[in-house]
């Protein structure tokens, strides 16, 4: 790790101001940023910690929308969202290990947009709205590619708004080593339609499987997905799975998610 300066503001305004400085980078739970800094693969000059800002923390229900502060750790979401949005709580409770879940935050995960992370699937699968210090961004517009988002330089996620569905489930097939999603499917049924988001599979990062959504809109059953498949082309291939295997898992995990959603 190289030397860096560390700033821990108490308010969002201070954080935004600090981020305007040269070579500054926001730090939330640090579960990706800190390991990469330790390996000297990343060397920000100033880290602006967001975890001291009370306004960025907490889980609350506003009507039928669950609003989660961006600096809320996974473990808190796993507990506090459990009664309102159990599928989301279960997803949060299945990320990493207890240490990761108590440090890592929802905002950090979404801003990083790791193609194998779980939270992007929840956000896209729920049609969530990502709230920043300057605007609101629909999940459909937020994830723009592997490790890429619509966030501007210096823009901070402050909260994520999840419309609570009628039913939902997230099923991930774990990569054997990292236990990230080798492929994960998030299925959520809303009054106005079903959403299916797939993580861990595509070279473009998280995506919606629209054919599956259409089939499930007709009948929200696993059988409705019979015969549907995704092409291997464009899927990731690595030590743990070929593109064809990942394409296959997309269908398996989606079917299982529908069954689990009930």
């Amino acid at each position: 790790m190289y030397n860096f300066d560390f700033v821990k503001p108490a308010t969002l305004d201070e954080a935004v101001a600090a981020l305007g400085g040269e070579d500054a980078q926001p730090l939330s739970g640090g579960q990706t940023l800190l390991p990469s800094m330790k390996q000297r693969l990343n060397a920000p000059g100033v880290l602006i910690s967001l975890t001291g800002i009370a306004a960025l923390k907490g889980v609350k229900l506003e009507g039928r929308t669950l609003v989660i502060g961006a600096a809320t750790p996974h473990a808190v979401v796993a507990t506090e969202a459990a009664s309102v949005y159990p599928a989301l709580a279960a997803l949060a409770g299945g990320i990493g290990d207890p240490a990761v879940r108590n440090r890592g935050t929802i905002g950090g995960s979404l801003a990083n947009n790791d193609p194998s992370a779980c939270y992007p699937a929840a956000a896209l699968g729920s049609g969530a709205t990502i709230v920043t210090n300057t605007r609101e961004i629909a999940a459909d517009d937020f994830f723009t590619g592997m490790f890429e988002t619509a966030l501007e330089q210096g823009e901070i996620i402050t909260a994520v708004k999840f419309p609570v569905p009628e039913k939902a489930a997230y099923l991930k097939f774990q990569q054997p080593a990292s236990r990230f999603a080798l492929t994960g499917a998030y299925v959520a049924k809303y009054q106005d339609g079903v959403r299916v988001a797939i993580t861990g599979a595509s070279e473009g990062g998280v995506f919606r499987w629209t054919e599956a959504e259409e089939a499930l809109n007709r009948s929200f059953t696993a059988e409705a997905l019979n015969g549907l498949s995704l092409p291997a082309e464009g899927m990731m291939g690595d030590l743990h799975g070929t593109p064809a295997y990942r394409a296959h898992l997309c269908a398996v995990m989606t079917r299982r998610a529908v069954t689990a959603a009930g």
Partner: protein
Amino acid sequence: MPKDGGIGASTKRREDIRFLTGRGVYTDDLNLHGQTFAVFCRSTVAHGKIVSIDTSATEAMPGVLAVFTGEDFKDVGGNPAGWLINSRDGTPMREPKRPVLAHGKVRHVGDAYAAVVAETYAQAKDAAEQLAADTVIDELPAIVDMKAAVADPSNRVHDEIPDNLCFDWGWIEDNRAAVDEVFKSAPHVTTLELVNNRLVPNAMEPRASIGEYFPGTGDYKLTTTSQNPHLTRLLIAAFVMGIPENKLQVVAPDVGGGFGSKIYHYGEEAVVLAAAKKLKRPVRWTAERSESFLSDAHGRDHVTKIELACEKDGTFLAFRTETLANVGAYLSNFSTATPTFLHGTLMAGPYKVPKVYVNVKTVFTNTAPVDAYRGAGRPEATFSLERVIDKMCRELGLDQFEVRRKNFITPDMYPYTTPVGLVYDTGNYHATLDKALEMTDLAGFEARAAEAKSRGKLRGLGLSTWIEACGIAPSNLVGVLGSRVGLYDAATVRVNATGNISVMTGAHSHGQGHETVFAQIVAEKLGVDANSVEIVHGDTAKIPFGMGSYGSRSLAVCGSAIDRAMGKIIAKGKKIAAHMLEAAEGDIEFKDGTFSVAGTDKAKTFGEIAFSAYVPHNYPLETLEPGLEETAFYDPGNFTYPAGAYLCEVEVDPDTGKVQVVAFHCADDFGNIMNPLIVEGQVHGGVGQGIGQALCENTSYDENGQLTSASFMDYAMPRADDVPFYNVDYSCQTPCTHNPLGVKGCGEAGAIGSPPAVVNAVIDALHRGGYDHVTHIDMPVSPARVWAAMQKH
């Protein structure tokens, strides 16, 4: 009932109290006055010519004290191979020099070519980064695939070795033609090509070394993560640095796992010693996890074709194997013994097969060196045998249990000379198989499979009946076979004046539990409280010259040395007692800690005798030296031959290919058991590592020689949810006939016996599910590989 704290008691491991409460003292825990920090520059390319290393900018950096390159060590010796193997044509193996730091060429990713020493770790780290930037290495084509390495004479890991071949070994070469004849006329031949996957040892504690030099005396001290401090001292002193042995102290304090990877001497140890002498200050280095992945000696990495010739009823006629064994870029200390005498000699298994021939070609590649890793050669042999037998049974429609029984050596055949050069002293393989079948409830399997099917899972049952040779080894035998060292061990039993006992052992404990079990043996034999016995190990200044711990040898070899030293203590105690009790020495009996005159109530306690030995007021000083301390060396008469039967049940998810081990039954014969709790723990750990090899661990180099599984993000270690609750039995006991404790090694059994049981179970599950086109899946049997195999209809 075993006596509390004595032989056979499940005494809890006394060392665990300090390990589990964070009070162990590992190399990196030591902080020395004036210490400095070394960081190594490691190659980022698999193969390259070192064009230039400009140290000037680095040397001018803050805190930098010294910079070393391969040039600084070009005149010292190489790190040697400990075992000379001759090729089939009689020519000796090729032994390229393994330098302290790479010189001229780098030969694998992670190959250290320079070191920087600085006042702080951060300064050393910054300086090493600068030095790497000021180093010019011309990348050469990487030699990664073994078949390509031997086929292409133009591309060489070592310029003087044209075909990248270390040796081409035949075992036993004189039997080759006769074995070939059997195959020509055999009623049935089963052939299997398989890979025994390369493994990264991943000890919890990474390697670490601290060098010290004392200018007043000219003494050196190396504190290091070693399984065998005397062997490390010998290698550094006699081969590499030329430091007189008596001027070098090697200390291996608490060591957090080795699994073989810490047997060997590594260049970093020589660098910290040389740097300490130059700077007259302690120099320390601790590997980062990434360095461990890249530069620890890896394990396994064989590509094998095995053939089994048999009658139609499954009676074995011959085994024949051809193996390519990867040694990586350099010969690590036991790298040449592992694929040969620890592998070829086991290729008869527990079977009365009349003919066996083994051919091993050992190949240099631009990858990390490969050496012994828990099991070392025997897992490779066992996997080949048990997989090809399983395949044969399927081809001929034979019952796998009956085929094993038909071919087992029977208890009336010992000592049994195998066609691959070993003499098994004792065993009972029918008994362990029967026990395993009883444990697994074979009759209930179909019901379990049906229940699994109702959940959409394919259940399978896999068997492995394994044997291994451990407790290495008889020095005269291994000397004939090429070993350059002896393989005895040594112990000193020091009875202190107040009656408590210090036992100094050559064996080194890095997780095995020696401090507990050795004390139990001493307590039992000398009739003292185990808590009064202290086991001292890991410091060449304190212990006698022993060969350390590997090859499941600590109890069988060093335990025997302890037993022998205690025999000397008891014999001397009888002389002292005879004098004190005014009786003839021949009339003195020793039992339960008391020396007594036979047939009388005249007696002296062990403590009274010890006190008399050190305060010899009433003592036969004319004929007997004072003191009560004895040293014994023990050189085993043979290997020990633990054996067993492992039955594994798996469930395969046909949708994803994921394999779950749902039951694992081990029926082992380890001879006499000193501490059942420790034996069970050793089996659990070994089977866990075996399941890791079978299902999870994939060491993958790409075509450029980059290790693509160089972190725990991609290298899958087995986790708690990958392994089942183990069912372990060790009640089948045929005591070893040639060591005084009647014990056999148990440390590697699990890692040797389990991988074929797991893979056989997966193949069984797939066949039961209708995927009978799948005859083999290479390890690790990952979900992706199982799914891919299922698709090939």
